[in-house]
Every structure is written in C-alpha cells, then in structure tokens.
C-alpha cells in the first residue's frame, strides 16, 4: 500500500442551517477543501452520511454531491457506518489512493438533521442499533447509551456528576471555534441539573442534533506539490462488534474501538503515549469515557478519575476534542468523523489558532457508530 496524505481540509459551521440543504452544505465543504489544496478536480468522491434516506428522502449522495460540487464525472458514492460514516468515508478515500486505484480523492462527511421533527430524528438515529431487538422495543439511541452509563456507574462506583469534566471541557474548547455550535461555557452545576433524556443521561451529556459538512482531499506521494501543507495518514483501521449491546460479553469494553485502535497503533508504530491530541467520539459522556479506555489513555474504569485531574483538558496529558468535539462543536452524525480529521489536520499544520495544542505532531481520531458496533480509527502525522 502507498503512503497517503491530506492536502486539503474544509468545513461548514455546525448548527441549524435553515437556509442550506444537503447539496449546499456538501458542496461548500468539498469546495473549501479543494481550494485549500489548490486543486480543481479529483478522481473520486466518498460521501459519509447516515440519515439522507431516512430524513432528507435523498440517497445516491455520491452523484448528488459530485454534481453539486462540480466534480462530474468522477467516481462517487456514499459510505454508511452509522455515526462513524464520516470516518469510514475518509478511510474509503485513503484506501482508494493507497491501493493505487486513484491518485487524488476527496472524502466528505455530511448530515442535514434539522429537516425532520425530533421524533423522526430520534427514530432515525435508533436505526443504528439492532432494529428487531433494540429499536422495535422502544430503545432510543440515548437509551442504549444510558444502559452503558448506568452499568459503568454501578461497576466502577462513580456518580453522574463524575462525567461532567468531559462536557465542561468540550464547551470550553468550543468557545474559540467559530465553526462550533455551542460556544458558551457550562458549569458542573448546570451539567448535573440538566433535564433527563433517558436516565441517567441528561441533555448536557449528549451531543446536539444539527447540520454540517466537513471534507478532506487525500492524495498519493506522487501527487504532492511543493506548496502543499501535507499531513500523512500514518494509519487507518476499522473493526466491528455485535450490533446489539446484549451480545457483548464485556459490556464496558468497546471491542471495535479497542481493536481498531490496536490495529492503528500496530500499523503506525505509535502508541497512546505518543499522541499530542485525541479527537474522540464524545457523542455522550459515557462514550467518551469508554473510547478513552479503549484507546489506552486510561485503564478500565479509570477514565473519570483522570478527567477529574484535568488529564483530557487543554494542557493536560492528552487533550481531547480540541475544537469542542461532538458535544460542543456539534454532532451532525455522518459528518462528525470527517470534522475530527479536519480538526486534527489543522492542529498538525499549526493552524488551530487559539485552540492550538503546542508542538502537535501526532494525532489520533476515533469515529464510533452504533454504540461501538463499528469504529474507525486514524493516526495522523505532521
């Protein structure tokens, strides 16, 4: 397999975009990434998206966005892996270039969630779980996370309040990110008081429903040009676990997240101690904790203790979600994995402004779908 590089990154602000549809958001992010890479055309486009069919009544997003972004007749199709769709699209683009099939490809993650009422969005998100054995029994996506969180609290003897540092830190990081949805700080008291969605999960444990798109241009070493500020994809790995939570022998180990991280560490030669930042899949505070443990940044059951000591805040041992993460930058589900790659790229190019992690050289990103049934992990190197 050939070495692959990110030479362009683009994103739209995350929020409720009443004036912008799927095609507008997608084309905007793609064109921004192409402009950043100073190129006009690509060989292929990979679109990461989860809910286009369920919410927007639009599938075939490959052709839709190739058309809207002026990339015709490039090969283009949609990649779907629930909330990990954005990470999966980046991996598909990286594989296509690494294999030699293409020289330049673009991956875009996109989600337009505000075209539906919240009950429809909740039902759409639940389709990432096992429909016959979870969703059909009234298990919402949040309820499944709540089952994980309750069990974590029980086994590790922690309280709901102990999860607060992840959310508080995410909001603090989003304050200086002009593309973030929530730029206001929150307090531990507000976190604890926030209304329950599915106990013990409150509103401030959870990432918001929103719209957004993020894109990266990926190329081979041969296609690199002198002026490119290239970031190397040192590893790209993915793994799966049971679709339903009930099938997991160890409920509190996200097996797919762990295995994809181990594969990425082996392929890149980097380990947990080598990373300067971690763009985590912080869709719910419990998922942040489990992802941190799966990647080896804390032993099993110790993530909250480390969070309380400031380990995951800016300036800590491993800064997490440096632009606000899914929690505060926002979680347009199929786009989030691509936002992580864009943000890590900005960090490694030292273009993160007030959010810059000093001396950032190696970054880890992890995109998780369906409560850990699928996970995509990337290692990026400056």
């Amino acid at each position, binding site marked *: 397999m050939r070495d692959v590089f990110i030479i362009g990154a683009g994103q739209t602000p995350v929020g409720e975009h009443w004036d912008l549809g799927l095609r507008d958001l997608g084309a905007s992010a793609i064109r921004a990434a192409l402009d950043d890479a100073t190129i006009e055309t690509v060989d292929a486009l990979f679109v990461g998206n989860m809910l286009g069919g369920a919410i927007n009544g639009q599938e075939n997003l490959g052709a839709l966005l190739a058309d809207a972004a002026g990339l015709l007749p490039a090969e283009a199709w949609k990649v779907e892996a629930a909330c990990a769709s954005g990470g999966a699209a980046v991996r598909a683009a990286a594989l296509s270039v690494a294999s030699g099939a293409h020289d330049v490809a673009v991956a875009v993650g996109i989600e337009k969630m505000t075209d539906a009422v919240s009950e429809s969005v*909740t*039902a759409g998100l639940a389709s990432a779980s096992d429909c016959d054995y979870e969703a*059909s*029994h009234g298990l919402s996506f*949040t309820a499944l996370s709540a*089952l994980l969180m309750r069990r974590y609290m029980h086994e590790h003897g922690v309280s709901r309040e102990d999860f607060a540092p992840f959310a508080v830190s995410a909001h603090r990081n989003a304050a200086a990110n002009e593309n973030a949805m929530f730029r206001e700080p929150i307090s531990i008291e507000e976190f604890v008081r926030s209304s329950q969605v*599915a106990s013990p999960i409150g509103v401030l444990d959870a990432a918001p429903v929103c719209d957004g798109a993020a894109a990266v241009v990926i190329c081979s070493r041969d296609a690199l040009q002198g002026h490119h500020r290239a970031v190397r994809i040192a590893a790209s790995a993915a793994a799966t676990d049971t679709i339903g*939570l009930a099938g997991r022998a160890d409920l509190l180990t996200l097996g797919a997240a762990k295995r994809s991280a181990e594969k990425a560490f082996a392929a890149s030669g980097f380990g947990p101690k080598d990373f300067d930042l971690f763009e985590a899949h912080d869709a719910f505070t419990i998922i942040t904790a489990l992802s941190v443990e799966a990647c080896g940044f804390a032993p099993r059951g110790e993530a909250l203790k480390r969070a309380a000591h400031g380990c995951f805040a800016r300036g800590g041992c491993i800064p997490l979600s440096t632009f606000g993460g899914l929690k505060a930058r926002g979680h347009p589900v199929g786009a989030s994995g691509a936002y992580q790659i864009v943000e890590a790229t900005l960090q490694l190019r030292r273009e993160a402004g007030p959010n810059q992690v000093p001396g950032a050289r190696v970054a880890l990103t992890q995109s998780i779908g369906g409560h850990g049934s699928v996970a995509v992990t990337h290692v990026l190197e400056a």
Partner: protein
Amino acid sequence: MPEAMDLPRYRRLTAPYYRLEGRRCKKCGAVQFPAREACGACRGREQEPYRFSGRGTVFSFSEVAMAPQGFSGPYLVALVELEEGVRVTAQLTDVDPDEVEIGMPVEMVTRRLQERGPQGQGYLVYGYKFRPALVPKASTPARP
C-alpha cells in the same frame, strides 16, 4: 421508522418475540439470543432452536423520557441477564421506576410493543417485556 405495512417483518420474528426462542449449538452446547448463523462460542454451524426460560435479573436499566416515533415516554428499558447467562434488551413493565435496581429478579411476559401502520387502522406488534419476578408467598391460601 417509516409508517409502512411491514407485517411480514414481525411475522418472521414470532419465535423470538413470543417464545424467547434462540439457538443452542449442537457441538458445544452454547446458547444465544437472537439466533445467528454460527455459534458465538465455537463458530459451529450445527444449531437447534432453544427456548429460554424467561427468568433473569436486571443488568442495567434506564427510564426513557424522550421517546422515538411510535412510542410514548416515560417507560423503562433494561438489559436483562437471563439465567442461562445470555442478555436481552427489553422494556420493563408492571413496576415503579423507583423500585428498579440492578440485580432485581425479573420474568418474561408477553405484551403489546407497538402499533404499526396508520393510526387506528394498523396492527399491533406483541412481544416480550419483563416484570418483577412473582415470588410465591408462603401465606398464599390454597385455591379452592
């Protein structure tokens, strides 16, 4: 979920939904729910239907306040660990939210899960839920 007439879908699920039926491996004896093509323990392909007892304990639970389309909150959901060692995700019923705790003994009952299709003209989907295990009381008088 779309408001479609997906009747055959739930007819296919009759065995697991009504009888809590999964599979048992003929080679190693491991049981699983729901059924999968290969044994979860030894990957053996020779399996037979296995009906779970329906008795277990609450492994984790949540009270859903914001319900998805087709459901109305609040209601209780849980991961139940069956006495055969396999877990199942289901709603809890006939219990006060304040009384639920991890480790609580529960048993399967058949209840209405959803109404599908156009409101008032669709069909009802029945399946398993779990309620607190009914412990026979020593003082219960014998039936006449």
